[in-house]
């Protein structure tokens, strides 16, 4: 390389060459020291030496400052991430605690209501409706459907056909509803009329809470729910998935299932009707949005 450069002392300068030659010229002419040093006398006085020393000191200073800056930034980033993780964990714990509180309070409200009603038939009707709506825990006989991801393909770029996706769960749940299931839960998450089963990236979310492989779908319904479910096209389809792609799929009639209550849905648009005689909140916080 170097010899070639020396062989062409007066190589062409100017705008002509292509982009590769631009990089090549950087390589061959790294600094301007080379160009006409022979013609120009190099004078070194005390002043220029001092300038060089100052510049060298500045360079050293700069390098250290940059080094320390980088070192200082690294633990800060890790610290921030740790803080975020701690925040997430504490918020999740707080959410769980508040959820428990809400359930406890809901039970209190229910027992107080039953007391006030003093009418067992009416209270029972209300309880039944709450159970149907998914707002109360229920128990009964039914079926447990378990689906799980098949083995991953050996070629990582190949499509993973054995993976359970949100639509698989939706199909199974809808089939169970159509067979007369009265209550369904996915991984202990009770479904209501407004529940959403959807995918976010690779995760499946039920009411915005992630559920994980293997997915256990429990349903309470008519006595022969398991047999009827096995006779549906859905079950056949999943049997085929199981044979072809290794997806796990089992249907089991299960007695004495207990399904938890779903959290009460928040009211976004509707406002509770105030009983006659009460003064509406002047700020309108409940309905004025």
């Amino acid at each position: 390389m170097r010899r070639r450069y020396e062989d062409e002392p007066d190589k062409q300068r100017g705008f002509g060459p292509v982009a590769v030659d631009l990089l090549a010229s950087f390589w061959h002419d790294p600094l301007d020291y080379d160009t006409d040093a022979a013609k120009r006398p190099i004078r070194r006085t005390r002043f220029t030496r001092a300038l060089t020393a100052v510049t060298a000191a500045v360079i050293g200073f700069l390098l250290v400052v940059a080094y320390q800056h980088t070192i200082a930034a690294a633990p800060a980033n890790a610290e921030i991430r740790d803080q975020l993780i701690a925040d997430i964990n504490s918020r999740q714990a707080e959410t769980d605690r508040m959820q428990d509180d809400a359930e406890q309070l809901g039970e209190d409200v229910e027992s107080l209501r039953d007391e006030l009603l003093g009418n067992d038939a009416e209270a029972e009707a209300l309880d039944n409706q709450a159970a149907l709506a998914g707002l109360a825990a229920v128990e009964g006989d039914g079926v447990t459907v378990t689906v799980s991801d098949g083995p991953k393909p050996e070629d990582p770029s190949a499509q993973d056909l054995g993976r359970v996706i949100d639509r698989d769960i939706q199909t199974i749940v809808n089939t169970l509803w159509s067979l007369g299931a009265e209550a369904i839960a996915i991984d202990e998450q009770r479904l209501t009329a407004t529940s959403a089963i959807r995918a976010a990236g690779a995760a499946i979310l039920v009411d915005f809470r992630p559920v994980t492989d293997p997915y256990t779908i429990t349903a309470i319904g008519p006595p022969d729910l398991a047999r009827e479910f096995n006779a549906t096209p859905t079950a056949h389809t999943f049997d085929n998935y199981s044979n072809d792609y290794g997806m796990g799929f089992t249907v089991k009639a299960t007695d004495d299932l207990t399904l938890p209550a779903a959290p009460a849905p928040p009211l976004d648009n509707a406002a509770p009707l105030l009983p006659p005689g009460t003064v509406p909140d002047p700020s309108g916080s409940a309905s004025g949005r």
Partner: protein
Amino acid sequence: MIAALALAVGIALGVFLDPDVPLWLQPYLPIAVIAALDSVFGGVRARLDKKFDDKQFVVSFISNVLIAALIVYLGDQLGVGSQLSTGVVVVLGIRIFSNAAAIRRHLFSA
């Protein structure tokens, strides 16, 4: 020799003073470091070539840092700061490597 001593003094100063980098200066720090490294390697190479010139060393360092900073500043204003930074790093990086190659040839004749 003086330059090497001064470099050590600068490093010591940086270690002892431990200055805070102002926020507005932080984007230019990496570019300034690359330009400074380029000047150091260029200076060592010129010294080994017996072509070292104090004036050229000082002026080239200052102008390199200023031009690199100007390019980054312009890029930031135009919204292509990272791309222009990459350009500066590539050009100066090539220069550093070729200067290092020249130094290597001088020291080890290889």
